[in-house]
């Protein structure tokens, strides 16, 4: 190792430790479930709009308070709103504050809005008729609700327009369903808790507030939102991390102490694990800004891989006949060769995960490769210091274990190889003859607690009025383009206008606003309806002149959705502008004729019908298929590498081992009832990488089969422990990954230990250096 590499290692190590100590708050654990969705958006403007929409959705949740007593439900909802509002970063929204925000934003532009009936009246009625109608309304019994004061809207036209809008918008705040009174409200995060610990704290506070309301008002409280799924997944992942990390570390500790009976080798193993995992975390933070919780779950299994380098290193020295020979250049060259090839195959295996267009797999690839590289460097640089003192291993015990294993499985290596190949062929036949089950539905990737799922379904049936995961995407250069496209859409045969909800529900088009403003000259112009109205009531002309002046000043001013959203943060981000392009989302109401809506959208170039679940499934399917093809290419590349490295073509047949292991693992998981997804395929890259790791080590150290087999045994135990624990994860994606590697790597291990048994004359003597 050159001085430069040594200096780089020391610098990185020190820099990492300093960064972690000075900046611990920057190491955030991310629980964003969107990382499991494939990246397919190439348009940065659309990505920005989608991110805004996704962020908005993930930062809202719905709360439902139910009771058979109307008052209890209303009081309980009110108390819960107050309790939630006291929690930092949370705001409970009610129809009242949403309407208030909307009203304050729209009122300055009130001369731009007219209802259809008002437009008709302006067309057909005389100023006298309209003035008389306004006067009548003043006297009318019950004409008590004026949304804006008389002096701002003396004719009451804007008030009527707003009341008409309120009636159009379905109020879900309080309804009666199946004999129960249901009060619903939305909660938004003004300050979304970034880390897992913060999210868990907020979750605890919310559930405590809910429980308190349940107890006090004898009501049932339900909630629904991505936040709860994220917390649930994080909790599940936390349990996995603990299981895998504690299990792996404990396994390594027991194994190292049992075999080496010394703290020195253990120190190197633990140092390399700490350096590897620590650098993996820091690399994730530097590149992605945080460490995803699933990265840590997968990353925890790295412990089992990282420790292999220490084991390989020590067994290389154990294999030397005397300590004096340890530092000879020949031995050093052999070790270096084996170690380099071993880390390259692992890096290729883990690096292949980044081929997939899944952010989570890219994150895992970065974490793992950074961790493996650092751990390897740690072993290579610190190893010589450790082996300065004699290392002793309980080889006798390991030899007994290996001998027992070989008695069972390796008595006839050729028969074993033939059986393996037959099994692989059988597995291939099984897969090709209809046994292949696939499932690319991203919902199957998550683990969701049944209670949470039940709540989600109950809340959805009571409140959700829109199709989940389906919407229309409208594009345009100018705001009017969006409205024109929506108008064409509504006019398309078979489209029910009420089936969709978009910006048109909140705001008329700029053209419509300008036209409506112009039409109201009949109301507020000289000698117009307002003048006639004032005269009929006996009001002095100057009393209405401020309104007329406001009308004149409002000329040319148009309210746009961006300004409306700025004034009313509770509006969903249905409108996004980026690089001169406008994107607008239109939501689809439940139980709508989706075929008709899709047909209409397909016929209008500016509108795209988006089915996010369908698209995600399609993209994941494509990832799975591409992954399978890339796996074949990886085998070809590894074959080339082996052929060039060993300058032999026959060496390529070594690849039959990981290939057979992969086929048998796939057939086994299919038989166990799992349907294949992209995570199974990605795990097959590791079966190749880890399998080649064993085989290369076994081949490189073929003259020392006993030591090699012991090293492989120890290495396999640690790897299988880590991946075995992954296979028992509650998270389906982790389970898929773990089960393939557990089975595949077990086969790799059996092959390595049985097929590279060495010639009898090569049997070693002695157990230590």
């Amino acid at each position: 190792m050159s001085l430069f590499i040594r200096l780089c290692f020391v610098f990185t190590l020190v820099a990492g430790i300093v960064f972690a100590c000075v900046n611990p708050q920057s190491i955030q654990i991310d629980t964003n479930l969107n990382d499991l969705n494939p990246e397919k958006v190439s348009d940065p403007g659309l990505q920005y709009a989608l991110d805004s929409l996704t962020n908005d959705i993930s930062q809202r949740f719905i709360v439902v308070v139910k009771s058979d007593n109307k008052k209890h439900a209303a009081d309980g909802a009110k108390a819960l709103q107050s309790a939630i509002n006291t929690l930092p970063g949370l705001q409970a929204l009610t129809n009242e504050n949403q309407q208030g925000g909307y009203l304050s934003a729209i009122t300055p532009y009130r001369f731009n809005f007219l209802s259809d009936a008002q437009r008709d009246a302006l067309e057909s009625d005389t100023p006298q008729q309209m003035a008389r109608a306004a006067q009548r309304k003043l006297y009318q019994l019950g004409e008590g609700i004026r949304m804006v004061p008389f002096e701002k809207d003396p004719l009451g036209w804007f008030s009527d327009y707003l009341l008409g809008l309120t009636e159009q918008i379905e109020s879900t705040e309080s309804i009666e369903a199946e004999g129960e009174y249901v009060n619903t409200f939305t909660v938004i995060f003004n300050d979304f808790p970034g880390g897992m610990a913060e999210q868990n704290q907020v979750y605890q506070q919310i559930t405590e507030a809910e429980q308190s309301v349940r107890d006090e008002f004898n009501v049932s409280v339900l909630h629904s939102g991505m936040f709860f799924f994220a917390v649930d997944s994080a909790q599940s992942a936390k349990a996995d991390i603990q299981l895998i990390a504690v299990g792996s570390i404990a396994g390594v500790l027991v194994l190292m102490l049992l075999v080496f009976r010394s703290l020195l080798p253990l120190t190197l193993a633990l140092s390399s694990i700490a350096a590897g995992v620590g650098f993996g975390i820091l690399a994730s933070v530097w590149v992605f800004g945080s460490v995803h919780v699933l990265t840590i779950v997968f990353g925890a299994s790295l412990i089992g891989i990282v420790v292999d380098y220490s084991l390989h290193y020590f067994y290389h020295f154990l294999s030397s006949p005397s300590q004096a020979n340890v530092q000879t250049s020949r031995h050093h060259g052999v070790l270096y060769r084996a170690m380099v090839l071993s880390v390259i195959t692992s890096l290729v295996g883990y690096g292949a995960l980044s081929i997939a267009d899944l952010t989570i797999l890219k994150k895992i690839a970065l974490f793992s490769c950074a961790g493996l590289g650092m751990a390897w460097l740690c072993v290579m640089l610190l190893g010589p210091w450790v082996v300065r003192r004699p290392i002793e291993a309980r080889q006798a015990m390991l030899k007994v274990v290996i001998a027992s294993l070989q008695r069972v499985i390796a008595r006839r290596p050729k028969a074993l190889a033939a059986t393996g190949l037959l099994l692989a062929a059988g597995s291939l036949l099984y897969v090709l003859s209809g046994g292949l089950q696939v499932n690319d539905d991203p919902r199957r990737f998550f683990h969701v607690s049944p209670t949470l799922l039940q709540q989600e379904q109950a809340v959805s049936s009571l409140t959700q009025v829109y199709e989940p995961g389906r919407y229309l995407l409208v594009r345009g250069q100018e705001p009017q383009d969006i409205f024109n496209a929506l108008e064409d859409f509504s006019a398309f045969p078979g489209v029910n206008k009420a089936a969709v909800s978009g910006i048109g529900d909140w705001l008329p088009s700029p053209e419509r606003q300008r036209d409506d403003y112009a039409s109201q000259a009949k109301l507020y112009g000289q000698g117009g309806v307002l003048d006639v109205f004032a005269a009929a009531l006996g009001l002095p002309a100057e009393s209405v002149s401020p309104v007329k002046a406001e009308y004149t000043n409002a000329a040319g001013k148009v309210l746009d959705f961006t300004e409306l959203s700025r004034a009313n943060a509770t509006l969903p981000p249905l409108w996004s502008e980026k690089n001169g392009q406008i994107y607008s989302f239109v939501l689809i109401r439940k139980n709508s004729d989706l075929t008709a809506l899709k047909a209409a959208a397909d016929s209008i170039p500016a509108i795209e019908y988006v089915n996010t679940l369908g698209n995600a499934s399609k993209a994941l399917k494509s990832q799975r298929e591409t992954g399978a093809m890339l796996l074949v290419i990886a085998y070809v590349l590894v074959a080339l590498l082996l052929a060039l490295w060993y300058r032999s073509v026959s060496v390529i047949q070594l690849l039959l081992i990981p290939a057979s292991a992969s086929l048998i693992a796939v057939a086994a998981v299919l038989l166990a009832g799992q349907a294949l997804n992209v995570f199974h395929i990605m795990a097959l890259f590791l079966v190749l990488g880890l399998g080649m790791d064993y085989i290369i080590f076994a081949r490189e150290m073929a003259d020392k089969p006993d030591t090699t087999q012991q090293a492989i045994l120890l290495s396999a135990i640690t790897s299988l422990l880590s991946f075995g624990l992954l296979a028992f994860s509650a998270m389906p994606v982790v389970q898929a990954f773990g089960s393939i590697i557990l089975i595949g790597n077990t086969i790799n291990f059996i092959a390595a230990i049985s097929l590279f048994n060495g010639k009898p004359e090569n049997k070693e003597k002695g157990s230590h250096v």
Partner: protein
Amino acid sequence: MSRFSLARLGLALFSVVSISALAEQSTANEETLLSSMFPSGCHFSGHFSQQKAMEGLPVPLKSTGDFYYSCDLGLVWHTIEPFSEAILYVNGTNNFRAEDDGTLTPLSGVARYIMSNIFIRLLKGDTGYFTDEFAITQEDSGALLLLPESDMMRKGLDAIRISQENTDNAQPAVTIKVTDATGQNTQVLIDQIQAYEFDGKRKAYEQCEALYADKTDWCRVLRSPGRFETY
């Protein structure tokens, strides 16, 4: 269980029973108070004078007219001055504005006419509705003060005051003062109340026709609102 905890349990049970009894008594009192204020009978007619004070308007808006209420049909609220028109309240959703020339305009939307609905329930003597939705107290002047309890109601309404004045007529005059959420006051005096003793929708319709013989369709709208919904 110790004597101490038994005593505490007994006290707690006593408190719960006492509180429920008090609550029931309070509701009964409120209903009695309301019944004494509301017009009695199922069918009656009368006169009204309404005065509305609106912020920003220097002059009060005064109107007068007559009305006919039948628990079987609904309400005809006929404004005579300063102009003639009627509002026909059949129920919460089927309401119309009727002009002298026979023009009928359906009044859509519940939110807009929430005040009218409250008013019709007052005439109906729906004491149960008011005890459920309002906190009712009696002021020193003898007037009843009704304060809405639900947020929804408070959005439009601040308070209702109902008081009674004895008149020469057998039925006392009733003054209803409604203060809405914007601070606007509407005061309605109902007097010259004439109660009718009959049963059935047909009789109620005939009485309506007798009162509004010259008004096309008004009573027919109350009897069969569905036929006029397309107007």
